[in-house]
Every structure is written in structure tokens, then in C-alpha cells.
């Protein structure tokens, strides 16, 4: 059994959890025992090992991370966060199509943070999820990309075009034409509204819809068969909003504003 650093960090749940606890600050043995729910006898060997590897310091009764320990924990976080996000809804994440997501953002998908998986409601199959329809009107600005136009989508957006300060709507050509031809009244209202800008998106992004507002983000992905199964992600985390904005930034040059 290697007493290597790799072994020290990778091969023990207790040691890993202790390192994660100490990144939050110095702790004494009682605090450690309480937070990790361990006995002194169980944790002492781990402490000894971490000290030997120069990852933690013991000063009096207090334990803290060394600089090396800190660097290690910081570099562990992306993996831990990503694992957590995936584990929470493994079936969902393993069956998505990620083609539309640029690779640098794809590896940072963990930034959705404390997200919620919105599952289709059998009782409300023909409506947009409440999580979406109730949160849009409460937003100050809305940025949406859509390749798929839900029937109640146009009226939702035209309905808030007076109250929401800024709406940017990016539509693929099929979605745009559907809006213009089949929902003409809503389309006209949106085009006339000062607050709303409609953009024609050149590419056919393999993504049903993605929306970011000033306070929530809403992501719809196709499943691995390329179908939209109405399972969506909503998140209120700052990091998720930022991630979505970066997504739009990446595709910024792929659209053109539609003028009257």
C-alpha cells in the first residue's frame, strides 16, 4: 500500500472529508468529531497521515490546512462538484445530448450548482412548466434561445413584454417562422414592443431552449436520441446565471437582429 500523496487523498472517504472540512477554517478535535461524525479513535490515524504528508498542521488543539493542503482541496472541488451534480440525477445527465454546448462550458456544467430537475407533469402536459411561466413575469430582463416553440410560449412572452424591461429572443429560422406565421398577434406585439428584440439565429443549435434572466436560469436539453422529453434544469445560483450568459456570449455572432 503506497503511502503516497495520491493514496492519502484519493483512497479514504474520512481523509477526504476532513480536508474538505478544514478548507472552511481551523477546527479543533471536538469540532472535527462532531462535523464528520467520527470517534477520536477513527479519525486520529487519518490526522496522523495527513500531517505526515504535510497537508494539515496541528497547533495546540487546532488543526488547519497547510498551503499545499489548501491547493489540493481547491483542485478537488471541480471534480467533487461535478460528481455531486451528476449523482443527484444520474439518469438525467447520462441521457442528454450535449452537442450544442461548447466544450469549455461543458466541462463546467457543475456551475449549475444547486439546480432542480423539472420533470414533466402529467396533469399539465400541454402547458409550459410552472417553474418557467411563473418566474418569467417576475424577471427584469430575459434572454432566451429557442429552437422549439411551445404553443403557450408566444403569449407568455408577448404578455410580459410590457412589464419586463428587456427581452432578447433568439430564434432559429423554423421557430421564427412559426412565431410569425402561426402566432401573428403575439409576434406583432413583440416586434412593436420597445423592450423586446428578436434575433434570427443562423445555426440550427441542437438545443430546445435556454433562458437566463436576472434571477434564474432555465436549461432544456434534447435527450441522447435527439428528442425533447420535457425534463429541464432550473437554477437560481449566480454561477448558473453566469454560465448561461457565457453560453450566449459564445454564440453572439451567430445571429442577427430582426428589424421591422
Amino acid at each position, binding site marked *: 500500500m503506497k503511502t*503516497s500523496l495520491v493514496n492519502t487523498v484519493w483512497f479514504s472517504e474520512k481523509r477526504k472529508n476532513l480536508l474538505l472540512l478544514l478548507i472552511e477554517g481551523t477546527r479543533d478535535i471536538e469540532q472535527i468529531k462532531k462535523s464528520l461524525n467520527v470517534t477520536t479513535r477513527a479519525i486520529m490515524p487519518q490526522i496522523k497521515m495527513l500531517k505526515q504528508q504535510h497537508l494539515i498542521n496541528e497547533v495546540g488543539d487546532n488543526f488547519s490546512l497547510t498551503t*499545499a493542503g489548501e*491547493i489540493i482541496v*481547491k*483542485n478537488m472541488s471541480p*471534480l467533487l462538484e461535478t*460528481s455531486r451534480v*451528476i449523482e443527484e440525477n444520474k439518469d438525467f445527465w*447520462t441521457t442528454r445530448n450535449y452537442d450544442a454546448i461548447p466544450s469549455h462550458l461543458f466541462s463546467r456544467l457543475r456551475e449549475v450548482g444547486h439546480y432542480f430537475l423539472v420533470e414533466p407533469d402529467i396533469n399539465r402536459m400541454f402547458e409550459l412548466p410552472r417553474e418557467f411561466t411563473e418566474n418569467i413575469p417576475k424577471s427584469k430582463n430575459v434572454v432566451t434561445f429557442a429552437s422549439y416553440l411551445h404553443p403557450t410560449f408566444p403569449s407568455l412572452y408577448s404578455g410580459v413584454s410590457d412589464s419586463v424591461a428587456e427581452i432578447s429572443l433568439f430564434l432559429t429560422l423554423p421557430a421564427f417562422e412559426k412565431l410569425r406565421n402561426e402566432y401573428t398577434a403575439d409576434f406583432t406585439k413583440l416586434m412593436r414592443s420597445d423592450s423586446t428584440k428578436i434575433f434570427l439565429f443562423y445555426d440550427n443549435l441542437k438545443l430546445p431552449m435556454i433562458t437566463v434572466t436576472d434571477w434564474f436560469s432555465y436549461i432544456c436539453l434534447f435527450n*441522447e436520441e435527439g428528442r425533447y422529453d420535457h425534463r429541464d434544469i432550473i437554477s437560481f445560483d449566480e454561477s448558473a446565471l453566469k454560465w448561461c450568459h457565457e453560453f450566449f456570449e459564445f454564440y453572439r455572432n451567430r445571429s442577427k437582429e430582426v428589424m421591422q
Partner: protein
Amino acid sequence: MNAIWFSDKRRKLLLFLLEGRKSPEEIKSAFRVSWRSLILPLKELKEEGLIINHNGSYELSGIGKMLAENVKPIDRILNLFEGNTDYWTERNFKEIPQYLLDRIGEIENYTIIEPDLNKMFEPPERFLRSLHTSRHINAVFSIYHPLYPALYCQLAKKGIPMSLILTEPVLQRMCEDCKEETEIIRQFQNTTFFCYNHEIVPPSFVITDNILLISFFTKGGRYDHRDVMSFAKSSLEWGEHLFDHYRSISHELPELLF
């Protein structure tokens, strides 16, 4: 996800497959082990949905790719520290800006060089050779080395563009001891001198297009003649970022020094 923790082989396989789809032959030769010892880890990764078996070849699934990318940082940092833990834990990292310190794992394929007792004050051979074939040289000198002014004079004469940042004490000594060489270096169009005068003493390092050599101070503020040397691309990029940081807080020296 236990698939990645608790097993060296599984983790290394994930990282290897980041390069793309691999056949069993490629995997076997890269890992230099029997196929038998790889069967179980590959099976476990498949069961976790992290890799797919595609006509006999293996590749990462979407999730597998996501996780492998996120394994990279911790894997790198452990590779950095592993085997040289005592060296790294003795270093004074106060000099390095936090955002670069967190990414120090980007220094890859490095060696710690410690000169012979007899060659204590000579720059390493390998280092000298690399310097002479560099297309540009950036350096921060916080340690005064009596042979350096002559060396950099030579390099300047070859026309190699250089940006040299000197701490106040080093600058002073150069002006006192090597006025002539310093003058000569300054004459060249493509050499620029900067002065760094903040309290925190930076590590002394040289970063060129083909080598990174860093002299980190110890926690006690001493130089123990143990340097980090690397030729890896990611190390060079990290080194350039470090140089950019110090350059941003140094001021360029005017034409006439004396």
C-alpha cells in the same frame, strides 16, 4: 463517484481516454500492463456509464468526458507534489498570486535540480543550452548571480528579445558590480529592463519559449539552490502568466540608467 476515487487505474484510464477513442492495443501499450489487469477497471467504468465500448474500442461517454476534464486539476496537482512533497511544502508561496498558485499543477514533467557541490554557482548545463536557443527570454531576478550579467550580455548580442525584471537590491548590485555589461545589454533594441520594488520578494525565474527554471525561496526566506526546471508546454504557459503578473506590477526603466 467511487468509480474515480479509490482506484489509480480507473482514474488513469479516464484521463487517457480524454485523448480520444482508443483500441485495446493502444491502451495496453500506454499502460504497459497485461490486458487482464485492465479488464476489471474498464468494466467498472462502463458500468458507471463513464466509458462506452464501440466496436472493441473504448471512448468516454458524455459524463465520462465531463468528469475526466474535472479530474485533470486534482490529478495534476497530485502529480506535482507526489515524490517531492518535502520540497514543495518547504517553499514560500506567499510570492505567488493566489490564482496562479491554485493552478500550480500546470507545471508538468519537471525536475528538481540541485547542483553538485563543485558547480554550486554555475547555471545548469541544460539551462544554458536552452537559453542560447530561445527565441525570447523573460526573467525575474530576485537573486543576484555574478555570472548572469555576462551571460545575458552574450544573449543580448545574439539578438534574443529579452524582458528582465529586477528587484531593487539586484538592480543596485548590477549597477555597482557590472556597470559595463549592464550598459551593453541596455543598448540593444529588444531588451527591456523593469524594476520591481514591492515588499514581497518574488521567486527568481526564467521563462523562455522552451524552458522554465524557477528558484523558489524556502519558508525561511532562503535560497537552497534547488530549482524547478521544465520544458513542458503547460509549464511554460504557467510561467508566462507568472511573468505577466510581475511585469504588471513593475515599472519599466528609462533609457538612461546611469
